[in-house]
């Protein structure tokens, strides 16, 4: 009952792609999607996810085939140290499921709570814009 979603993922399930960092819902490193909406798993009780879909960075690729977001991050070097990257990508996934063709401003607004201390923001935004295009092309 007192277990957080982050503890469940990292400690019990050994899914360590989701990162622990600020522990106070500020940095975004622990972002996961619950029913397609981003949450800070550090400050979210695991029982709340009962009966809901939880998507972490581990669930994004289809076998060996990376998600367009992951491909775009790789292509654009949308990371430096990479610690914030799973959270950035999951936040972006949540954005694109709600707003498939976001503007750069909408991306900046949505990801304002995902902090990259290396300052890869330009490449992150570019990656999300490109992934949005890729999703659109696959749909048509």
């Amino acid at each position, binding site marked *: *009952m007192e277990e957080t979603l982050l503890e469940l993922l990292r400690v019990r399930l050994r899914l360590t792609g989701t990162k622990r960092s600020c*522990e106070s819902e*500020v940095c975004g490193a622990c972002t996961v999607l619950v029913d397609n909406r981003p949450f800070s798993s550090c400050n979210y009780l695991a029982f709340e996810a009962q009966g809901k879909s939880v998507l972490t960075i581990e669930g994004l690729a289809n076998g060996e085939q990376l998600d367009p977001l992951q491909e775009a991050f790789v292509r654009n070097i949308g990371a430096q140290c990479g610690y914030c990257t799973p959270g950035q990508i999951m936040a972006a996934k949540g954005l694109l499921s709600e707003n498939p063709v976001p503007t750069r401003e909408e991306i900046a607004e949505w990801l304002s709570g995902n902090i990259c201390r290396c300052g890869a923001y330009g490449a992150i935004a570019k990656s999300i814009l490109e992934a949005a295009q890729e999703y659109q092309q696959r749909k048509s």
Partner: protein
Amino acid sequence: MLNELKLVQPTTLYEASKALTDYGESAKIYAGGAELLLLMRQGLMQTEVLVDVKKIERLQRVTWNGNGVRAGAGVTHRELATAPLIREQAPALAFAESQVANVRVRNQGTLGGNLCFNDPHSDPGTVLLIHDATVTLGSHRGERQLALGEFYIDMYATALEPDELLVEVKLSPLPAGMKSAYVRLHRYQRPTLGVAAATMVKNDTIEEARLAVGCVGPKAQRLPELEEKISGTKLNDARRIVVDAKNYFRDLLRPVDDLLGSASYKLYMTGVLLGDALEQTIRAGNGKQAS
């Protein structure tokens, strides 16, 4: 790591209030957990029982009752920011809600949690004040209404009794022709300063004004004397009056120096942002982020 917790999930207000009575101080009301879990995880608050109010249906609705909006205490910031009824009837509130922390907090945190926690560095309450909001508090003993300004007592302190829950917030639409705005400054994803304004303007003259300021003092407050002073003035004069009101702000708001800025900086910016908010109500309305 959290200590061992027991979860209670009442489906009615009565059951929830009874649980609070039965468990006493070892129980806490739990809705989104955005604020509560932070405190518990940092060891600043001990609790053994969470009374989860998310299954009480009445707390989860945003409705129109013919002359006002009722927003359930369990409605999240994200839901309020995007609810058509709020965007239509209280656009400055929808804007303020869209600026709370970050999208993860907005998905989790609730209006009721925000108001009951009464962290002075908060957005929604400031706008609710210019809508003359009242809160409905309920317990197994019955229900009562309080003006939001009376519900707020001091920082982190409200008029909520130990067996009571915040049920809903009622807000009146602004009178026809009155426009509103919310303007804020923020650092570290919490607002340093937030001001709300609403004006009714005729022939370039402010006929009626409502002003509120949050974050600078221990609680969000209306500024009745200043509202009176700028009534009957034109925008430029009103701007001068609010910028010159530093002593009034200091006495009313009792600001302190903290990580977000010195007291004198906050007082200065209160006047500046109130002026900006007034200008927005006259030019466009609905709130904007201060850069």
